């Protein structure tokens, strides 16, 4: 398969636009440049993102800001235990028309470019399943009739790490459909001061539109054309394979995880204006890609170990090259 790699001009144009997008999102989410970068990377890679954090950290604002900056249609679904699949996908309603009575499909909130699935773990597994199927197939089927979702289509789901009683944790198979799982960290004092100065309670943030839907689709296509060197491919494969050999991990990452990591690495390279992905991209994205795809063993849970620690350990122990440098070769520096 012949792939035309991005030209320097394309890369430069993409870099400028994505920089502007980052700056715009930076005005929405203060003090979280890595998070903003990862969200953009995930979208450029065409993936869905699971956001985990305490209430009030700006998850909804981030999604709204993204939709405005990208010129995309955005909808928000608040997941509750009594939410039904049809409430998401849409349903057939009997309509009285001049031609007589007939069922018409009324699109649900999922028919948008950017869907915010708020507190996804509060819905029943049946409803979650309907959403996750739509995420994977990028279409919904109602009464045997298939309806394509708009392109691009992204789901940014959120879940709180607290108040877990009465929730339905997402099954591992469904978690695997999310490209990234990003955690919202606590803001420090300086960021809080900035938020207080620049925001008002109850008012949405003014975010300029940086690009439009078509251009963003082009950027997604451009990200897929970014070169992935063989050595990076081998590194990703060895890294994902190593998740299966760790004693503390009961189930390792799937091949989809490897694909996700490769796609995300290319998207991150495009974000940086590079024609190729690198080891550094893989290292930077390994935790968001792998943390929700690895299942700890019983003993590791008892020992209080976290998946993040295990990913860190993997990144330390798996060398970027199988045939690396011997210990007797101290360092290569410039």
């Amino acid at each position, binding site marked *: 398969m012949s792939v035309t790699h991005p030209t320097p001009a394309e890369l430069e144009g993409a870099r400028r636009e994505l920089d502007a997008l980052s700056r715009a999102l930076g005005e929405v989410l203060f003090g979280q440049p890595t998070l903003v970068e990862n969200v953009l990377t995930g979208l450029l890679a065409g993936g869905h993102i699971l956001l985990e954090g305490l209430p009030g950290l700006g998850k909804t604002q981030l999604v709204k800001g993204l939709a405005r900056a990208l010129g995309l249609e955005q909808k928000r679904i608040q997941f509750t235990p009594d939410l039904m699949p049809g409430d998401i996908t849409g349903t057939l309603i009997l309509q009285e028309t001049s031609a007589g009575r007939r069922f018409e499909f009324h699109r649900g909130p999922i028919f948008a470019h950017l869907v915010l699935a708020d507190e996804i773990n509060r819905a029943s597994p049946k409803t979650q399943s309907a959403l996750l199927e739509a995420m994977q197939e990028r279409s919904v089927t109602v009464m045997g009739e298939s309806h394509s979702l708009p392109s691009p289509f992204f789901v940014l789901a959120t879940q709180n790490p607290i108040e877990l009683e009465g929730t339905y944790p997402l099954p591992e198979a469904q978690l695997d459909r999310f490209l990234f799982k990003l955690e919202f960290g606590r803001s420090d004092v300086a960021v809080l001061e900035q938020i207080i100065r620049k925001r008002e309670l109850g008012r949405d943030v003014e975010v300029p539109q940086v690009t439009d839907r078509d251009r963003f689709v082009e950027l997604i296509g451009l990200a897929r054309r970014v*070169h992935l*060197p063989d*050595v990076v491919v081998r590194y990703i494969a060895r890294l994902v394979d190593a998740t299966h050999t760790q004693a503390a991990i009961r189930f390792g990452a799937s091949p989809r995880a490897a694909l996700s990591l490769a796609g995300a690495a290319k998207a991150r390279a495009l974000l*940086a204006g590079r024609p190729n992905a690198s*080891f*550094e991209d893989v290292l930077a994205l390994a935790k968001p890609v792998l943390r929700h795809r690895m299942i700890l063993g019983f003993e590791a849970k008892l020992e209080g170990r976290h998946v993040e620690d295990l990913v860190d350990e993997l990144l330390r122990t798996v060398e970027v090259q199988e*045939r690396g*440098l011997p210990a007797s070769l101290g360092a*290569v520096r410039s």
Partner: protein
Amino acid sequence: MDPFWGREARRLAWSASFGWWLEAFAPAFAVLGALDAALILALREGGRGVGGGVLLGAAGVVAIGIRAYVRARPRFLEVPDALAELDWRLRLDNQLSSALAGVGAWPSPSRWRPVVTWRLRGAGLPVAAGLAIVALALRVPTPDSDRNVAPAFQPAAWAQIEGAIERLDDERIADPRALETWRARLAELESKPAREWYEHQQLEATDTLSEQLDRALTRLANGLGDAKSALTERQASARGLGAERTAAPGDAAGRRLSGTGPGDGPATQTPATQRPGASERLRKLMRAMEASRLPLHPDLRRQLDSATESPAMSQQELEQLIARLEEGQRTALNMRSQSASRQLDEIAERVAGGPSDGERPTTQNRSAHGTGSGRGPGTAPLLIGEVKTAHDGKPEEVFGKEKAKAALGDPAGLSQSEHTVDPSEYRGPTRAGAIADRGRGGEATWSDSLSPDEQEYLKRWFR
């Protein structure tokens, strides 16, 4: 490929490959070094050359070098691997790997000067340890390495023994056939490798030979001295008798014996009345000396035989024979080694003013001196401060001349007495139940027959 990055990649690939090889090689080299060092030490201690050990070690190095290559080969870096490694180490975001694949441009060489540093503690230590232990095994002193150094000089006792043998031969005192036996024994000692000359067993053998020669020389000297005394006694008796006979000129026998009568020749003949006792003593002496390790020279023995058996030995011939015996005795005494007995004899001679006839002990008193069993010199010094008593009527002579100046413990003289054991007494079979021979020694025999001074000396000697 960019020439600069190609060169750097090849350099890094070579360095990394060598590092992998070294890491596979080093532990095995340390083990090989230890084994080779043990082998070299064993060879050195066994007195063999270390060349075999070094060669074996070199062959082992080649073998483990090949083994290390085979083991490390899968980890050797190729140029693409080295470029990726440079990407990673220099934080180049895989620009080099991508440029190699035709994507993007090569980074500008002017910005980068890759420097490879070595950390050889891990791999270098085993190699250094292996080399050090082999060098140590080659250099550390071993018992055999001392032995391998050939001594510059032969033991001094050999020269003394050889000198004594040669002088006895030159002066025709001892039987040349017996001297050949002594030479053969000395040659056997000399035939050993030079590094063994000063080994314990060799020195023991040298001491034994030297002591045996000392005893043989002492016995020879005593025999010669006794023979000389017997002949001197006979000469003196002949002179006395001759004088008596000279006073009665009509006595033909007197004239014949004194040699003053016409036709009797110049020599004075031994009187027939004295001949049987002296001759018997001489015969005994001859037999004893014949049985010793240093028998008399055939010429000397013939002269003594003729003096013993022939009544017609002239006075001049007798004097010549006595002089020769005296010279032979002096030579034999001088040839003895610087042993304790020699020192004591020298003390005796010094104190007594030399072994002149008048001051020498009598034959009976000196016989013990020459027939020692090797346990003691046969002479015992009389020390100032010790109370001595006569023992069994045997005389104890004190030769010290300046007792006033002597301190306690100084040797004041020597006591010499005759031992009654005559090892040459028995010469043939005897009837059942009869004991004709008192034996040739044994500690009890000698101890019982020693004088109190000699017993005291023995006690101090073995204390």
